[in-house]
């Protein structure tokens, strides 16, 4: 996207946990435009957790509803237990997210705009690089209360 500022240093490895194939595919294209790398797409909780271990993602976008039910919360918890992975919920079902956000840093509400995805990734890239993130939370994104 036009204002994606992911340079070579900021390219993130991203795991997409999404059971809706079209959404996952589009998101992959968008991430590619933004200069990031999609390291895997998982439609079920088992796949997601396995890819979380094998694909070494920096960031995981996690939907709540997966092929095997509303298992996104436990996926988030499992992925977030690895300190190298930043978990972001991406769902139309934010009411299902527990109070502690299961270790995720926040939630992108569906339907999302490309701008929100871009700015969250900028924020995450800044933080991972040890910079103070310059971006405040865009509309359509809510940070976990712990942050």
């Amino acid at each position: 996207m036009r204002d994606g500022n992911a340079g070579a240093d900021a390219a993130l490895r991203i795991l997409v946990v999404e059971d809706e194939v079209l959404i996952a595919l589009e998101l992959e294209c968008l991430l590619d435009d933004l200069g990031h790398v999609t390291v895997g797409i998982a439609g079920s909780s088992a796949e997601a957790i396995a890819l979380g271990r094998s694909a070494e993602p920096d960031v995981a976008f996690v939907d709540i509803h997966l092929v095997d039910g509303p298992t996104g919360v436990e996926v988030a918890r499992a992925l977030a237990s690895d300190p190298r992975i930043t978990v972001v919920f991406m769902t139309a079902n934010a009411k299902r997210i527990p109070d502690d956000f299961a270790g995720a840093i926040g939630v992108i509400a569906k339907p999302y705009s490309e701008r929100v995805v871009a700015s969250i990734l900028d924020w995450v890239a800044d933080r991972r690089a040890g910079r103070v993130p310059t971006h405040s939370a865009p509309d359509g994104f809510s940070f976990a209360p712990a942050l």
Partner: protein
Amino acid sequence: MLVDAFARSLSPMVITDARAPDNPITWVNDAFLGLTGFATDELLGRNCRMLQGPGTDPAEVARIHAAIEAGEPVTAELLNYRKDGTPYWSAMTVTPVHDEAGLAYFYAAQADMTHTREREVTMRVTNDELERLVAARTHDLSAALEQKTALLHEVDHRVKNNLQVISSLMLLKARRTPEGEARDALQGMAERIGALSTAHRMLYSEGDCTHFNLGDFASEFLSDVNAGLDHEKQRVEAEVEPIAVAAAMAAPLALLIHELTANALRHAFPNAREGRVSITARRTQSGMQLTIRDDGVGLAAAPPNPAGFGRNLVEMVVRQLRGTIAWADAGPGTYVAIDIPLLSPT
């Protein structure tokens, strides 16, 4: 004369001898005989406890006994038994009667409270039954409400997810379409869906899903539009009052604002001309006025647009909102003013 009046009284009365051992009955009236079913000679010389039975409350008996021992008047209600064994509720007042030598008699007047008691019991049963029915109904209603709320969340979730799928579909197809008219059309559609999605998300993220805050929408819409612009050259600004409109107006208004802004950006600044688009919305006496102004080339200078879908769409939506629209050359640029009636001031 007084004794005669007591003897004829319809209130059952009894007198006991306080000085004789075990406080025996010495006088009863006809009403008392009628109530208890005993004959006079069956009662005289005996203690009143002969009327008590298995249902008589011992605590109440003890209370009466204590008052009698102390020589004090007492009021009590006791389940007593007739000669034939049937119970009746007796409300009584027992009064000590003194003569020169001290306590001489106890005088007790009674009333048959059986019917009152029965009514109370019936009322209690009826009340209990009503309360049970109300509780059952409340439970059913709560369960139904819970079910409907869950259904609402489910539908909301599906609508949002489907909007995302539709948007993804359009964008995927656009990516696979060579640059040109078709691709622009697909991207334009995806943007329209994006504007509708924003409106839908804002409508259902707040507790109040009957109103839509135009100001909130405008600020989010602005961020989305500006994210896609070259900031050096073009900019969209908005000054939108936080007007609460009916939920039904959310989608048409979102489309309207999107269409006019996109139209201005598409036509007002040819050849990377610099400029800005400003959106305003304010309350008026009868509703609201929405204006979109750009400082671009103006209506007359813009190349003729035979399809003119954007403008058509705008006019259709304005008609749907029962509003009026005026297009004008603002020199420089184009000025569009839309007046929309609002039903009730909110």
